[in-house]
């Protein structure tokens, strides 16, 4: 804990210290939130165990022309879901609640610059996602014998970082469209659940119709899942990275960030409407 008696404050030490200060408290708050604890830490692991145990036994599927076990397929898919649950669902709900409760307005009433508040929260989200992804990889390795090469792990790390930032931007943008915290959870489910099914998160896209696949390709979920699936079946970093998917994710990040910047409100929306 930061103590005023032990030297300069984070604000006095500069933007980086202030960013870490904000990220630390945002992480602490999310670790203590029962909803966040379940959905961002337990739910992905639980789904991995259920899917791999129920469906994964001795079955195979095809990813990018390579035959792999269903357990290996699920690791890639659930890694994508973890990014989405942490960055998109987590931020849509947290930001909407904090805004409507006046907490964002009160933070904004202090000298802390807006980029620090948003950057600190994004960093906290990234740390949370990295922690769950690591845990997921450990469970996959120990529980189901699914191992990855160093190159594949590096490609996964890059994809998770880009994906988390893209879905965080999307989360900020969607939070700007929601007026009531009660609406946040339904909106998250309504937007993501259909995409999980058609984007290869839970079900291999090879079993879907071309029309559904084309629809899925418009949205970022498919690109995040495809990049992670590709990494999960390749050995070297260059072969495991999917530049096309990463570019699409970056484009989504840019477009939604621009939208969020125009639409974002620090003040409660319901009260001022």
């Amino acid at each position, binding site marked *: *804990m930061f103590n*005023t008696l032990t030297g300069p404050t984070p*604000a006095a030490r500069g933007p980086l210290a202030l960013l870490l200060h*904000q990220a630390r408290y945002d992480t602490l708050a999310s670790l203590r939130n029962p909803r966040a604890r379940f959905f961002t830490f337990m739910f992905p692991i639980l789904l991995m165990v259920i899917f791999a145990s129920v469906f994964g036994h001795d079955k195979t599927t095809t990813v990018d022309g390579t035959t792999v076990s269903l357990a290996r397929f699920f690791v890639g898919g659930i890694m994508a879901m973890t990014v989405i649950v942490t960055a998109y669902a987590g931020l849509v709900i947290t930001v909407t*609640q904090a805004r409507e409760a006046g907490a964002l307005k009160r933070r904004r*009433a202090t*000298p*802390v610059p807006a980029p620090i508040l948003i950057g600190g929260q994004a960093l906290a989200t990234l740390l949370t996602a990295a922690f769950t992804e690591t845990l997921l990889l450990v469970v996959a390795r120990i529980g189901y014998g699914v191992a990855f090469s160093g190159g594949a792990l590096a490609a996964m790390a890059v994809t998770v970082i880009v994906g988390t930032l893209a879905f965080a931007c999307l989360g900020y943008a969607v939070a700007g469209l929601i007026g009531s915290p009660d609406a946040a959870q339904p909106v998250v489910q309504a937007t993501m659940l259909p995409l999980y099914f058609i984007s290869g998160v839970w079900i291999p896209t090879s079993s879907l119709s071309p029309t559904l696949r084309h629809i899925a390709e418009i949205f970022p979920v498919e690109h995040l899942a495809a990049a992670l699936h590709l990494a999960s079946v390749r050995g070297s970093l260059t072969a495991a990275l999917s530049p096309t998917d990463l570019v699409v994710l970056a484009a989504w990040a840019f477009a939604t960030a621009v939208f969020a910047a125009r639409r974002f409100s620090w003040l409660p929306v319901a009260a001022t409407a």
Partner: protein
Amino acid sequence: MITNSLDAAVAQRAAAHPQAEAVIEVSGLHKQYGDHEAVRGIDLEVVRGEIFAFLGPNGAGKTTTVEILEGFRKATSGSVRVLGADPARAPQRWRERIGIVLQESAPEPGLTVRECLSLYAGYYSAPRPIDETLDHTGLTEVSEQRAASLSGGQRRRLDVALALIGDPELIFLDEPTTGFDPSARRAAWEVIDGLRRIGKTVFLTTHYMEEAERLADRIAVIAAGRIIAQGTPRTLGGRDTSEARITFTLPPGTTVADLPYELSERVVLEDGGRVAAGSTAIATDLSILSGWALQQGSQLDDLEVRRATLEDVYLELVSGRQHDRS
């Protein structure tokens, strides 16, 4: 030379605060939301070290005005200076010098009281010590509790502590006790009174007359987007020079016509056989009345002299303005 009541008020304040430095200066402030004019030309001056109450009914334009002063909303027209800067264009560093207690704000979720203060202290380059701030707001005992588990009154004190932690010169309190029970309200008033003792300037909005009277050095009353009265709790609305009201029951066997001439032409009959007379010269009127009563062999047992309460003045000021919102 003093030519009108505004000059008189300015002269009076200058006499009371020889080195009065304006912390907030507002002139001709307007705010328009679509067709609705929420604020219709406001002039205000708040000087260093005073508690200034901005009093008015709900929907009168209080929160809109205070949000413009806090830099959360832009004025449609008019000039606003807070601590020497235009709040709408002030750099984020300007916020080092102000503290804000919002009308409604939930505590930071998941954090303890002490962690909330630590988080906010980190935002400022020279914050107040955390323990001292906890002590000042009476939160030391609950400092390790989750902020979300506090009672309503304790949460409000945490709001004040968070506004104080940056050691600001000027503190905005937007309806700090709305929805409180009487004991929580008194506890909050003690905290606000404490801000005066440590030399802070306080801009307080409220719709409780009693709160303004108890806390404020000066009061401005706003209704339908305009300031309709300004003054100290003692002088607001001409309260100090307004008519007092003398009421009594006529001694048995007498009528209004029997009263001395000076009184009989002014009295009105009230319910229950009492009579009432407005008076601007109380000692004279009482002397005439008591001389007459003694002649009648009466002690006027239920004689009452009453000056308008601040509540009376406020209600009279505000009534008739509330519906004036085309």
